[in-house]
């Protein structure tokens, strides 16, 4: 009996020391990690809407969408808010919007930072997070692919196979479609919120 208590105590001491060290390091690295993420978002926003001097965050409530796939876990309530940023130039003139478009692609959630002008025409996009198939879908991060989104409006945003003007990546139509659709959905939300603003 005493032997087993001793075993437990030794394990307890080891885990206690380990968790103490980890807690200390976590306190040191957590703020840096969070700052990096905020900074990365700011950089991505500036990248897609380079003329902007500063951004103002805003959001619009969107109707809860019925998920086509019943197996997929229902999204959190907070995701019923569509978040976007208004970009202003140095003279505080509204020059466009940025938002993160996100949909599940072939093997991962593909997140795209999108910059649009005040007419809701895409200025520039930047894939900020993806884990699609290397060599196929992962080619979506290539400059040449992302460039073709420049100057497209909501109507033109569809893969060429679906009658749109986005040329799909060889062997990765699903990834291409995902990106085009996610931007389209975002633009749709954005147009509603812009309408509301004009009524105000």
């Amino acid at each position, binding site marked *: 009996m005493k032997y087993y208590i*001793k*075993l437990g105590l*030794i*394990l307890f001491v*080891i*885990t206690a020391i*380990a968790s103490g*060290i*980890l807690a200390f*390091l*976590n306190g*040191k*690295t*957590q703020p*840096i*990690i969070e700052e*990096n993420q905020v900074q*990365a978002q700011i950089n991505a926003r500036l990248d897609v809407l380079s003329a902007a001097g500063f951004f103002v965050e805003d959001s619009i409530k969107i109707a809860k969408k019925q998920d086509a796939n019943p197996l997929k876990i229902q999204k959190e309530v907070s995701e019923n808010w569509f978040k976007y940023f208004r970009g202003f130039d140095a003279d505080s003139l509204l020059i466009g919007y940025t938002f993160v478009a996100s949909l599940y692609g072939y093997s991962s959630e593909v997140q795209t930072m999108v910059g649009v002008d005040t007419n809701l025409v895409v200025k520039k996009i930047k894939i900020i*997070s993806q*884990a699609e*198939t*290397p*060599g*196929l879908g992962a080619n979506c991060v290539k400059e040449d692919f992302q460039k073709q989104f420049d100057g497209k409006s909501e109507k033109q945003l569809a893969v060429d196979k679906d009658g749109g003007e986005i040329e799909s990546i060889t*062997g990765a139509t699903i990834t291409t479609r995902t990106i085009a659709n996610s931007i389209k959905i975002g633009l749709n939300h954005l147009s509603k919120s812009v309408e509301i603003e004009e009524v105000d």
Partner: protein
Amino acid sequence: MLREFTKGFIKENPVFVMALGLCPTLAVTSSVVNAIGMGLAATFVLVFSNIIISLIKDFIPTKIRIPAYIVVIASFVTIVDMVMHAYLPAIHKSLGLFIPLIVVNCIILGRAEAFASKNNVLKSILDGFGMGFGFTFALVVIGGIREVLGAGQFLGMNVMWTSYKPMLVAILAPGAFIVMGLLMGLMNLKKKK
């Protein structure tokens, strides 16, 4: 003494000879950068867990040695994970899930059990570095072949002639098995001679 260091490269190479840690080997070798990142992260964990385990081996009753080793290894993996996330976010992002998985990398627990728990600190450090670099070496060789064939690049730079059509299969999952299998066969062939 030096043998403890050099044996990890060829004679007891963890991947090609002992066939340990194959899961990360297959998963992260689609590019050389990933291979180096994974190899060095695993080496760090391996060396430090070897040090700690050879230090505390006399205090740990044999009955609970495995959970004790796992706690030590898991702690170092978490440290690597947090530090990389904070200071090397780009590599952390591309290695993703495979950093936490170093915990269950058989090489590390294998060396703890087979070597560090029976040898002194100095030998364990040498063993850790040797095995770690042997693992990194194996990953870089596989990653290099796959990246050159599958993407026409090495470390992100184009190395093949311009009309080269990348052999996609090499950077997809089957390519990892094919390249590793051929390399293992080559190693065995050389040993037989």
